[in-house]
């Protein structure tokens, strides 16, 4: 028997199944504020048992969240910060052998090409190559019109010791949805 009384458009059941099937233990959608990051830090500190791994995992969450904070095309005004802050979604899940951190946010369609090229290039580099590339970019002056350090994607590849997973889906002529998927060996 199906009971539908004031049925919401959001299916809690589907959400439950999705997060359960992917062992998602943490999901957040909204403004990627400093306070949200601090809460995630608290949650992660209790697990996994391996302290270095827990910190790498947190480092991955921070860089993904800060990409959203600075670069998400969808922004929302934060009363506390008195400014617009990027909106997006972050999940932390796991498989038998990996932790998987995913981030999703809206980007401008024309940014897709740059992001794709950057990820593809980073994915060709080995451990030493990533280290050298990060060192080189970190020495360049911070781009004046961009608030980020421009080394977040390299850091993600280094901390995770895996290639960067990404997917870009067109929403309409102006915007696309960017998913970054970072896995780290347990």
């Amino acid at each position, binding site marked *: 028997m199906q009971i539908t009384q004031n049925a919401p458009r959001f299916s809690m059941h589907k959400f439950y199944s999705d997060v359960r099937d992917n062992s998602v233990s943490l999901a957040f959608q909204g403004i*990627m504020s*400093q306070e949200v*990051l*601090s809460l995630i*830090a608290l949650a992660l500190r209790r697990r996994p048992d391996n*302290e*270095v791994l827990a*910190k*790498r995992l*947190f*480092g991955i969450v*921070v*860089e993904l969240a*800060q990409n959203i*904070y*600075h670069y998400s095309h969808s922004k929302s005004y934060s009363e506390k910060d008195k400014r617009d802050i990027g909106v997006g979604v972050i999940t932390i899940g796991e498989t038998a052998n990996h932790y998987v951190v995913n981030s999703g946010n809206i980007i401008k369609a024309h940014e897709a090409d740059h992001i794709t090229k950057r990820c593809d290039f980073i994915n060709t580099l080995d451990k030493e190559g990533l*280290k050298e590339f990060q*060192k080189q970019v*970190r*020495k360049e002056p*911070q781009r004046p019109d961009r*608030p*980020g*350090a421009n*080394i*977040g994607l390299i*850091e993600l590849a280094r*901390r995770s010791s895996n290639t960067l997973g990404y997917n870009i889906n067109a929403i309409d002529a102006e915007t696309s949805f960017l998913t970054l998927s970072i896995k780290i060996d347990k």
Partner: protein
Amino acid sequence: MVPMDNLHIHHTDYTPEIVFDADSGILRIEGESYHEQSMVFYQPIISWLREYLSQTDRTVEVHFNISYFNTLTSRRFIEMLELLESYDEKHKGRAKIFWHYNSSDVDMLESGKEFANETYLAFDFVPA
């Protein structure tokens, strides 16, 4: 010349404690550093350091004791190290860096070594 005031900033969940003691020349940065706008937090600290190094000639010790920092912070650390390097060149070895890390934290040791490789400054690695 007006003597410099000490600089003391209390830590938060995402910014480190800053204790810069002008008289002793011992400057400590301790805690977590992942401010989403690192410039907002570090600008006054870097300004203090620049001003201090322009008026003193004593030995300056900088103690980094950081448990986690983000990539934006690493850019600010590079800027501080550049200021200290110029000071060290001018005053013949009067700037020393102490990189404190938890002995089980291989990543933090590696990060320190990477900073050390980018400067001529003397780095001491201090496990805890």
